[in-house]
């Protein structure tokens, strides 16, 4: 079976890979590129554990073919921290215990960042609806929502 050659950018790094046409971006990230921070919870777009950004848009990597990454800017959890400095969301998730088992955490962080990139001052309701595509079974969402609201306020303060 001949493979497709895809040229893309992942977390700012020019990246090339070969994949089958039927392969999802999730399989490419995890199995071909070793970026296992993006998790598979369902494979059908119902849990958000595989959240990534494609040209700034939040998507489920399990609902995208690897081939579609051609020429795109892909963002994954591995690109959230800058060098050794954690993103404020990452830092606050740890500080506020916004994770228990941690399997949904990469997806939540990528989704929350996509929200804050668009909306600097989301209400609690807006945060809850934005993150409704990310399932968490451990926390009851409480501490996750608090962490995101906190970081939004922190970032607003920083840019003021």
């Amino acid at each position, binding site marked *: *079976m001949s493979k*497709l050659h895809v040229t893309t950018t992942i977390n700012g790094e020019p990246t090339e890979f070969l994949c089958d*046409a039927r392969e999802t971006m999730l399989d490419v990230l995890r199995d071909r590129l070793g970026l296992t921070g993006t998790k598979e919870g369902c494979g059908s777009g119902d849990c958000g554990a595989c959240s990534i950004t494609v040209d700034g*848009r939040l*998507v489920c990597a399990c*609902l*995208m*073919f690897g081939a579609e990454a051609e020429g795109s800017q892909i963002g994954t959890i591995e690109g959230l921290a800058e060098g050794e400095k954690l993103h404020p969301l990452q830092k606050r998730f740890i500080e506020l215990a916004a994770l228990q088992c941690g399997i949904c955490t990469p997806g939540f962080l990528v989704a929350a960042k996509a929200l804050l990139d668009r909306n600097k001052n989301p209400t609690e309701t807006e945060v809850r609806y*934005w993150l409704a595509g990310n399932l968490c079974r451990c926390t009851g969402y409480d501490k996750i929502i608090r962490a995101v609201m906190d970081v939004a306020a922190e970032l607003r303060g920083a840019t003021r």
Partner: protein
Amino acid sequence: MADIRYSAPSTIDEAVRLFAASGGAKILAGGTDLLVQMRSGAVSPGHIIDVKRIAEMTSIAEQNGSFRIGAAASAAVIGEHAALRKVWPGVVEAINLIGSKQVQGRASAGGNLCNASPAADSVPAMVAAGATVTLQGPGGRRELPVEQLASGPGRTTLAPGEIAVAITLPARPKGSGDAYLRLIPRTEMDIAVVGCGVSLTIANGACTTARVSLGAVAPTVLLVDGAAKALIGSKLDEAALEAAAAACRAVCKPIDDKRGTIAYRTKIAGVLLKRATAIAAERARSH
């Protein structure tokens, strides 16, 4: 394992040519249904034709008050189109109810329509809006009212090789408003148990035009003429709303399944009609 091809043509003509040439091909717009179907083994295309690199299919254009939405434009892009949102808030809301924010980044109105699910969220709103879909096939282009596209669950009236290119929402007179409501057990992430789209125009306090549509209560999305007739000419008073709700209940031919019962769906069709009409009327009055 059968080989599978992937193409990302940059023109519609090329897409149609590729599509017509290969029997087992599937059009890839947002892919939020296609990938799930492929994973479950429900479909196994030999050729995937990605239409998102075709500008005409991913853009939104306004012309003399009407809007032409590329069939592969993502829900997120549609939701961010301020002018469209202002004129067709119900349609935009419906499109923005398709799946999560993640799904919104990919899913398209064209895909939602061509997937031909009776529970598709955007379709009742588009049907109520009187939208048409532009199809292009080997035989050229044609326009079709959106309610005529699906012929049953997962089945369409698309001719072989035909692709949905764009959806057109007509210009609207002053005093018009639309709304879409769906019932889901949770607040998000569910398939509609019932969906209801209402589009109407109010002049001098009376409803002059109306279109009502129901989703998930029959094998295809229904245009409910009886409900529209009950609203037109009325002041949208309780009696008219009840008559329209009764018309909605009367056309329901739902099934009992994991998402709802026949009795529940039938009842909810009437409930949503009343609520959606109230929202549409409110919008019409401030339009």
